[in-house]
């Protein structure tokens, strides 16, 4: 195809575009604007919230323009990996604690210690569990946490009232859990099959290990210590809830709906789940009963719960690190977190915001929202190893056998520990 004067059309249009761009520049008197690219996941509410904040940031920093790229949560890791390999990663990204350590270990993230020191950034305001859990990798600060996801024991208050049972509180331990859960477990329609359970197993079997005084990895993260009695006995307790005490649905019983759906449809009395679930799941799915949050029960040795969340980081291959740091400071500031707490009910990682009315006085269930903040100190984050995902996948597959009652926790854990040792050696 040809343009005027027989010039190839492509060349002609390129010329036009250049002319347009030049005339655009000429109007603004050489105010250099740096565009930074920012990757995040976001639902509709969150997207609106973040866009508004970005607009405010751009107003405060006329020299910086932020291009937001929304990617589904499950695709962010791939996107970061692929764009880094291709040499054109975003400048700032939001990262989940689920994949933080593998990414940091690959050297994809920019160390932030010198920025924090130079600008006197108030890192002390943050919950140390969050900063240590998914801010630092091997002692180096790579990201600033914003959202916390901490797990608590949700319970169906209406069901408890109907059975005249005391609500779970800080005095509860595993024995009490089993005792009360037994009273809630029954066959309501008389077909010989259980259809209401006192408790539902959460995906995080590690919690039972830590609560029993055990651990998955040794303190220096070089060995798997699941083969110690205090570790595997915790796993065994989890399996016993299904197979011995019979107070929780088996994988087969829960296969149709899943444990969370069973809870929201009133078939399960208690379930451990994340602080985010109340806004994102329960507010939509729970219609005909009242629920609340309580501390997770204490195990034989300790109280332990899942903690994770999101954070902001700068990519090591970014070409605009100063601008990126400005944006990162803004996004991890108090305004952002207050906003996130008010609109999305997210537990803020800044203590000053978490302890303020913005979070604690939200007008929505659960009534005892404070429990989440109090449980943060019992939170155990994902171990900081590069092979965290592969390790979890191997272990989850082995734990299937224990939960299904096919094998004892002891034999499975003794067998799998050397496999994980090997994996740790080669990561």
């Amino acid at each position, binding site marked *: 195809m040809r343009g005027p004067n027989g010039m190839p059309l492509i060349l002609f249009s390129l010329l036009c575009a250049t002319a347009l761009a030049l005339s655009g520049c000429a109007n603004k008197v050489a105010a250099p604007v740096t565009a930074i690219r920012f990757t995040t996941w976001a639902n509709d509410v969150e997207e609106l919230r973040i866009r508004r904040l970005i607009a405010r940031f751009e107003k405060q920093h006329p020299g910086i323009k932020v291009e937001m790229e929304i990617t589904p949560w499950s695709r962010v890791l791939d996107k970061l*990996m*692929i764009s880094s390999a291709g040499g054109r990663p975003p400048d700032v990204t939001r990262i989940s604690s689920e994949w933080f350590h593998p990414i940091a270990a690959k*050297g994809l993230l920019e160390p932030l210690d010198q920025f924090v020191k130079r600008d006197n950034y108030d890192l002390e305001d943050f919950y140390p569990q969050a900063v240590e859990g998914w801010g630092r990798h091997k002692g180096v600060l790579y990201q600033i946490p914003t959202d916390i996801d901490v797990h608590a024991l949700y319970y169906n208050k209406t069901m408890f009232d109907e059975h005249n049972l005391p609500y779970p509180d800080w005095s509860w331990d595993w024995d009490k859990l089993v005792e009360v859960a037994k009273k809630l477990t029954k066959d309501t329609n008389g077909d010989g099959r259980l259809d209401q359970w006192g408790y539902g197993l959460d995906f995080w079997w590690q919690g039972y290990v830590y609560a029993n005084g055990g651990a998955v990895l040794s303190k220096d993260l070089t060995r798997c210590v699941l083969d110690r009695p205090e570790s595997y006995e915790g796993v065994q307790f989890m399996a016993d809830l299904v197979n011995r005490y019979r107070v929780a649905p088996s*994988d*087969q*019983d829960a296969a149709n709906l899943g444990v969370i759906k069973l809870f929201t449809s009133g078939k399960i009395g208690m379930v451990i789940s994340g602080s985010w679930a109340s806004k994102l799941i329960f507010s939509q799915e729970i219609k005909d009963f009242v629920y609340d949050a309580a501390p997770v029960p204490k195990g034989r040795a300790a109280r332990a719960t899942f903690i994770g969340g999101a954070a902001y980081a700068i990519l090591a291959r970014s070409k605009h690190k100063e601008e990126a740091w400005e944006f990162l400071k803004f996004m991890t500031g108090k305004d952002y977190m207050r906003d996130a707490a008010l609109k999305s009910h997210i537990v803020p990682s800044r203590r000053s915001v978490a302890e303020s009315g913005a979070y604690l006085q939200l007008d929505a269930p659960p009534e005892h929202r404070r429990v989440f903040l109090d449980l943060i100190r019992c939170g155990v984050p994902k171990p900081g190893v590069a*092979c965290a995902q592969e390790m979890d996948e191997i272990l*989850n597959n082995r734990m*299937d056998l224990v939960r299904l009652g096919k094998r004892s926790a002891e034999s499975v854990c003794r067998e799998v520990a050397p*496999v994980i040792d090997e994996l740790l050696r080669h990561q």
Partner: protein
Amino acid sequence: MRGSRLLRKEAFEGYAFISPWLVGFICLTLGPVVFSFLMSLTQWDMINPPKWVGAANYAAIFADDFRFRQALKVTAIYAAFAVPLGLVCSLALAMLLNLNLRGMRTFRTIFYIPAILPGVAVSMVWLTVFRPHGGVFNSILGWFGIPPVSWLQEPQWALPSFIIMSLWGVGGGMIIYLAGLQSVPTQLYEAAEIDGAGSWTKFRNVTLPMISPTILFNLIMGVIGSFQVFTSSFIMTQGGPAYSTLFYVLYLYQKAFRYLQMGYACALAWILFAIILALTLVVFKSSARWVYYEAELKR
């Protein structure tokens, strides 16, 4: 002199005409193949530059990779059951659909449709078919008083579930058998009938030998296909429970794209290639004994 110039010109034009294919083959097939072999000799996470490790990946796979052994076991068991089952069922189906009945075209279409549906959608459907409570299979079992089976939740049932599910795709083999069956000359059946052959004898001594090339083709495609199962296990079980459905290609995918060990995954891919190649060669060699080609007889 003139002739050779003409020949050269002709050769050049010939290459020019096939160049789209040549370029495509070299860039899109041969290049990646060579590249993947080189990468199988490295440690590479796709972000940092590859590190040469020689045959270390292969050594690690054969020496102490329990997931490799599990994946091989799962895939081999699956192939050992799914391939013969598929061969027999698609042939049986093809013979039924080869009968001369009204509306047979409609039936053929109906039975072929499953073979062309996208794997992801089919997997989602089968997830509901296998549901422990209210799923199709357990409801049927329930009519006969058989207690529900946890198809995909129990390690010993998960792989058999996939084998059952493989029957969903028999339409693909069926359509090829149909073509084979229809090319069997009717005079052979007539001659056999005059000799007093019953329907079993006709099937055994006329149909089977005449369609044996088709059987060979379906056998090879079946073996290759069953060693490359991925979508269904990726969607339905992610290899679980307890790695009972860890198909080889699923493991390869996990290594490459989830754990970012592309070098290791390339080595896995080459081992898979060697296995499929060896199996195909064995089938080919054996075919001289049982496959009948009309053309050979004429010679």
